[in-house]
């Protein structure tokens, strides 16, 4: 039995969230009625000409810099030619031999539940291009209709080096790209809407073989877990064929991932190399980047996920916390601000990952949608730590703050929630509870010491939850012992 090695490379199409399309002033709104956001330019009418939306360049430069690429200070657009009804002009405006960015890399941390580990994957190139429309097939299959709303929407194609070795690595690579474009604000990165589309090339070869195995392309994965499973399925399919001595049945083809049956199936076999007859787009001038333009973009980049993760790591957070907080820039910003306002790092992380995250998940909200401010989270943590309120009360206040806003101090005052820390007051309550429960006291003294918890609960109830639990237990124990 051979050992096998998998080589995975990924082409990712990121739909840019510019207000208007790449070469005309039509907006793009996902889910619009077919052919409602089109014009002579994006429907390829005779005489119409493309005019580049400068936001596309700005976004491409952002992504190029964030992926540690070298930028082409002068690049150009080319025409990629083929016929298909969703391609109005009969060519796609793309970039061929001089992409706007080349030779970068992306760093990521694998999830701890999969064993963790840091990875760096190479980025071959990033180029700008336009999206095609969509074909809508009739129920009977007797005709198709064309929706050109998406035609001309700007895309970045990000091509990785063949550096990934497993479905997990590939899925995490895609997730990191999604994180990055969301951090940069250049795309919503939504896989279900097709704003982030990954075509994965998978080949397998026996360890020690220098030639690459036959490359198979997989499409149609609309979640990272689907990517993970699709690739692992494809790897084992190819390894099986090797093991059965049927490696010749691995052919160069495009396979579709079927989520229902959890397998890949042949979509089309590639017959030779398609000749796209690329040539320079004569309707558009070269894309020339000024140093100042690039410098301005560079200096306005946010702290990127990798740098954030390393910083959190240095703050002493566990990798699980680090990955959680850095996953979403808004969450990370919230955390950073809370810490800046004096919140304890670990406690702030716990609150965010625990109750706050659960709330957001249930309510399908983002952290910016809730009324709790980082300032108040810091205040809440401090109030608990300082003993003003109990942790239990803290939780109650938290949900109040999330839903209605307000301040910790205000709520404590309004609801009279200040913790009782006066030993005499607590003692009185302890005495009251003990005197009201002679039977249980009897049992306790008879050796049923577990009843201490019962008494503590009764006292807490008596204090309406406000008694300091440490003091309460201390005094209760003294009383139980002293009167024995």
């Amino acid at each position, binding site marked *: 039995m051979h050992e096998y090695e998998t080589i995975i490379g990924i082409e990712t199409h990121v739909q840019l969230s510019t207000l208007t399309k790449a070469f005309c002033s039509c907006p793009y709104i996902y889910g619009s009625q077919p052919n409602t956001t089109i014009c002579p330019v994006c429907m*390829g009418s005779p*005489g119409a*000409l493309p005019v580049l939306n400068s936001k596309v360049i700005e976004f491409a430069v952002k992504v190029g810099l964030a992926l540690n690429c070298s930028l082409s200070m002068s690049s150009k657009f080319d025409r990629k030619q083929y016929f298909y009804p969703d391609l*109005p*002009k*009969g060519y796609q405006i793309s970039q061929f031999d001089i992409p706007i960015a080349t030779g970068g890399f992306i760093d990521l941390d694998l999830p701890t539940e999969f064993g963790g580990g840091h990875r760096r994957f190479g980025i071959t190139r990033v180029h700008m291009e336009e999206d095609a429309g969509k074909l809508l097939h009739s129920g009977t299959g007797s005709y198709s209709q064309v929706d050109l709303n998406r035609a001309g929407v700007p895309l970045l194609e990000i091509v990785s080096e063949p550096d990934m070795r497993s479905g997990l690595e590939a899925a995490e690579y895609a997730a990191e790209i999604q994180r990055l474009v969301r951090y940069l604000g250049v795309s919503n990165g939504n896989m279900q809407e097709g704003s982030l589309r990954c075509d994965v090339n998978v080949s397998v070869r026996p360890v020690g073989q220098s030639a690459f195995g036959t490359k198979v392309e997989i499409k149609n994965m609309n979640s990272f877990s689907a990517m993970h499973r699709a690739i692992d399925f494809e790897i084992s399919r190819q390894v099986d064929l090797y093991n059965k001595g049927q490696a010749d049945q691995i052919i160069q083809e495009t396979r579709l991932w079927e989520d229902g049956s959890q397998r890949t199936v042949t979509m089309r076999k590639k017959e030779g190399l398609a000749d796209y*007859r690329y040539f320079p787009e004569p309707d558009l001038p070269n894309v020339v980047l000024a140093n100042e333009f690039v410098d301005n973009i560079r200096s306005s980049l946010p702290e990127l996920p990798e740098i954030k993760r390393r910083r959190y790591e240095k703050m002493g957070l566990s990798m699980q916390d680090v990955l959680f907080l850095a996953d979403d820039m808004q969450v990370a910003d919230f955390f950073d601000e809370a810490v800046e306002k004096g919140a304890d790092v670990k406690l702030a992380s716990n609150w965010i990952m625990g109750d706050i995250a659960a709330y957001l998940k249930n309510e399908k909200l983002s952290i910016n949608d809730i009324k709790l401010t980082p300032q108040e989270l810091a205040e809440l943590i401090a109030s608990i730590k300082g003993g003003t309120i109990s942790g239990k009360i803290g939780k109650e206040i938290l949900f109040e703050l999330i839903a209605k806003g307000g301040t910790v101090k205000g709520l404590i005052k309004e609801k009279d929630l200040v913790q009782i820390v006066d030993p005499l007051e607590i003692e009185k309550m302890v005495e009251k509870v003990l005197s009201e429960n002679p039977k249980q006291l009897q049992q306790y003294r008879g050796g049923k010491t577990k009843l201490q918890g019962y008494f503590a609960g009764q006292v807490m109830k008596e204090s309406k939850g406000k008694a300091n639990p440490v003091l309460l237990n201390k005094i209760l124990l003294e009383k139980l012992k002293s009167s024995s």
Partner: protein
Amino acid sequence: MPSPVQNPRILLSQCRFQLHFPPKPHNLQPNPRHFHCSKSKLSLSHQHQLVSEPQTSQSPSSWSPSSQILTIRESLLSRQKKAVEITRDYLNRLRQTEPQIRSFLHVSEEEAAMREAEDIDRKIEQNEELGPLAGVPIAVKDNICTADMPSTGGSRILEGYRPAVDATAVRRLRECGGIVIGKTNLDEFGMGSTTEASGFQVTANPWDVSRVPGGSSGGSAAAVSAGQCVVSLGSDTGGSVRQPASFCGVVGMKPTYGRVSRFGLMAYASSLDVIGCFGSSVMDTAILLGAISGHDRLDSTSSKHEVPNYASELASADLLESKPLSGLKVGIICETLGDGVDAGVISSIRAAASHFEELGSIVTEVSLPSFSLGLPAYYILASSESSSNLSRYDGIRYGNQVAADELNSLYKDSRAKGFGPEVKMRILMGTYALSAGYYDAYYKRAQQVRTLVQKGFKEALGENDILISPAAPSAAYKIGEKTNDPLAMYAGDIMTVNVNLAGLPALVLPCGFVEGGSAGLPVGLQMIGGAFDEAKLLKVGHIFERTLHGCRFVPSL
């Protein structure tokens, strides 16, 4: 020197072209078969009995092409004529001559044109300001989009197609008060040099209806020549304005690449295409060019270079000065006067050179060594780009669709039926040239030639203010004469394609005649300038035209 008004017969006897023929050793002797200006004597006497121009026609004895646009403006402002009358006159003339010439693929609805004319008349009544083209009937080549009329590009694949918007050039001339009276015939999508490759009809040359008007803007050139409109728009990818201007004896302007927006011009070869102008005088051409020039945010290849007031610069030209072009350095491109060029054409250009000298210019011969490389490079680049630009005509979204059971047949049948043979040939050539393995040998090499051509012009224009050459190697030839010999037809573009490769402006104006037809056939002189030097070309052309006596470039119809 030239006194303004002369008896034509006296004038002819003075015709300097033959008298002042520069005795250069390698010159071809003037071929006796060719008539030059003496021929126009016949046409002149023949003409003024027959020509019924709608304009206030001048007495032939004082004939020299004056601005019809300015004449119209004057008669409107002085209330001698109404815009509706002028428009009706032109539409009548158009209808009367169209059966012979067939220059229009679509003529505006009379009511629509009259409504526009009434608007102008109302403005005049209310003393509102008039645009520079107010009340001027204009024809537009049918590969330039007009929202209110079909725009077919001369192709069956777009039969009946109506664009959603006007081309920028059309929008601008309408904003200047121009009245678009119709769409003119062309070789399908601009691919041809005779207008015979139109998907709809063949246009005749008004000088001799058995001859071609040139192409691809043959309809626009013929329409101006035949007096069916005052000025017209054409497009020039390899000479498509200049060669028909030469064949039809009108003024044709190919502006610098990027001077006029291409938005709304059906792309043939995007890096070479420009919209150009036709007029019966340099002044009219200048006024039209001024109206349509300038940057357009819908065309990123349009230039932000400032647009001078071409017309006012012409008006200021001092025609009474004895040497109005004193010191102007004129380079005559020697490669354009060699083998394959008709002797009569060469004589006319030599005569024009002498005329320049008499006006005070210094004429020298210049050589453009890469000149002959331009033609093959042009056909590779233009075909390559066209193979891509014409991909959108697939029958899916607009235009004629042939019903088919499956997608590939739909494409194949729609395109097979919709395109004519010349277009198919160029798509095939271009597809081949761009294919993997051939790209470097063809497209890339052609681009290198293009750079050489640009350099050659730059050098020559560094030493000269303008360059001159024939606009075509021959005068208009017979319909059908070259239809079976595409290479001969392509060779006819030798004079013009280099200018497109270099992106430079060039003005063609009639300068003489050769024998042919009943009244001789006009010959066009091409004047080439540096980038954005249109004003200079127009000024020089204006002076040349106003001082060129004895040639009346109005055909008898």
